[in-house]
């Protein structure tokens, strides 16, 4: 904007924006603050000045109870992402570079499977998992998470692949590159950022999934979602420790989310908003 924005207007807008942002972010902030309070402080009433003790984090780390669900979350999030990419890249590739009349329909159908409510198939999934011994296993969870996020992964990769200008591939062809040469030297390097963004989004979605990860697990494979959910009826007072556990649970995803804002818009609106 070439016009001079009055500094006064900018200050008012800034004050308003920061106030709103503070209010929205407050619960997270408060949780982090509580995690460095002592338990007594945690229930002593609203206080923004903790004693900055890290005893809660130490406690949380010391208990193997916490390490297990954390690792479960990591395994199923990363696992479902890798498997998803392996399945989705070829599919998105062929749809982007050799489209047919049915390509659009297939894509739409894939997206529609994402819209099916999980609870609608809770019963058969529970029974299948119980009868095949997949109940409370990381493998079972990984499979489910791969399937529910596959449509979004395929979709996002498809949009990224389509953005690679055809002329650059033609230039490579004119320059004497074979099909493999085209793929290795030109296509893949240009597609890597898109693939990375898609993987990031998949990890976020898998980590935060809070239905299958709770209903299909027990002591063995429960990831952080189920672990934290199990504290819904607290015995005794341990909000500081729970805050520490929660902070550790959301921290990686929060940071990933800050970096992948654009991908979020692209992936979750199925491209309807760019």
């Amino acid at each position, binding site marked *: *904007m070439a016009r001079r924005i009055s500094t006064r*207007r900018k200050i008012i*807008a*800034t004050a308003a*924006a920061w106030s*709103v942002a*503070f209010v*929205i*972010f407050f*619960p997270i902030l*408060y949780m982090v603050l509580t995690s460095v309070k002592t338990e007594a402080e945690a*229930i002593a009433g*609203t206080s923004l000045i903790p004693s900055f003790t890290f005893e809660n984090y130490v406690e949380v780390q010391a208990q193997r109870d916490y390490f297990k669900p954390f690792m479960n979350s990591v395994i199923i999030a990363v696992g479902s992402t890798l498997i998803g990419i392996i399945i*989705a890249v*070829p*599919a998105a*590739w*062929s749809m982007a*570079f*050799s489209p*047919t009349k049915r390509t*659009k329909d*297939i*894509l*739409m159908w*894939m997206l*529609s499977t994402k*819209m*099916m*409510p999980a*609870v*609608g*198939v*809770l*019963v058969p999934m*529970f*029974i299948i998992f119980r009868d095949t011994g997949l109940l409370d296993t990381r493998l079972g969870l990984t499979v489910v998470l791969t*399937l529910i996020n*596959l449509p979004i992964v395929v979709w996002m990769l498809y949009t990224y692949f389509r953005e690679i200008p055809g002329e650059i591939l033609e230039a490579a062809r004119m320059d004497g590159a074979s099909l493999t040469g085209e793929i290795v030297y030109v296509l893949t390097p240009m597609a890597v950022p898109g693939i990375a963004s898609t993987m990031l989004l998949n990890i976020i979605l898998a980590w*935060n999934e*809070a*239905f299958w990860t*709770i*209903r299909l697990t027990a002591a063995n494979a429960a990831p952080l*979602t189920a672990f934290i*959910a199990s504290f*819904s009826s607290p015995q005794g007072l341990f*909000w500081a420790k729970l*805050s520490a556990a*929660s902070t550790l649970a*959301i921290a990686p*995803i*929060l940071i990933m989310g*800050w970096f992948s*804002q654009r991908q979020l*818009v692209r992936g979750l*609106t199925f491209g*309807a*908003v*760019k």
Partner: protein
Amino acid sequence: MATRQTRTLARVMMAPAVILLLIWMIVPLAMTLWYSFQNYNLLNPMGRGFAGWENYYYFYTDPAFWQSIRNTLTIVGGVLLITVVGGVLLALLLDQPIFGQGVVRILVISPFFVMPPVAALVWKNMIMHPGYGVFADIARFFGMQPVDWFAQYPLFSIVLIVAWQWLPFATLILLTALQSLDEEQKEAAEMDGANFLNRFRYLILPHLARSITVVILIQTIFLLAVYAEILVTTNGGPGYATTNLAFLIYRTALLSYDVGGASAGGVIAVILANIVAIFLMRAVGRNLDR
């Protein structure tokens, strides 16, 4: 590039994704449909048999079912209202020139990345707790009695938590759409004598209409399935006050062990979601044509 060879190759490359999703879609749904017509209770495996429309009838006449439908619509409607209106306002605010825009954006989008159990626990026990929660302290500061949110306004509390989680999504989408509005269009409107309210009504809102539609449709799909927040805070109670359709089905399946009944409920939930999905696919499909 489309010779017969490449066409077969393309089909092979698509096969795993298509086959897996096909199985994922058909097998469980078919089973749900089958069970919905069965008498099947996990506690009583001997008593199996064809039930006809009994399960559906039971659902139809169960007051809990209708309450769950009402609760579902309240949650969806309430969250949509808060997130769309709030999202538009927030998007307008964030579109203004401000200092530290990047940081503000990060703060505002954070709730979306918090996993539902954590969000629910933090809100219930640290913000809304009548004893030592932040709201309670604020109320006492103003000399008022603290509200026991989950006892007095349980459904509203759920709506608040879910809305907090989805507000960033709506804001981000609407902000992106807002920033795609051609600067020159706004300037032309200004030259034509339109003040801010007019520009909003005739220029900005129509431009946002499409994104608002997308936000509503996508959020609805996910809001119909709100689960973890209810599980962690109220378990559907008091009574059925915070039970939505998803939670009711869960209860029927895994607390009453009534597979038949839960399956009937599942079929209903799928039909409901499909209706919304049809509208969404039309909106998305139009965009794929570009």
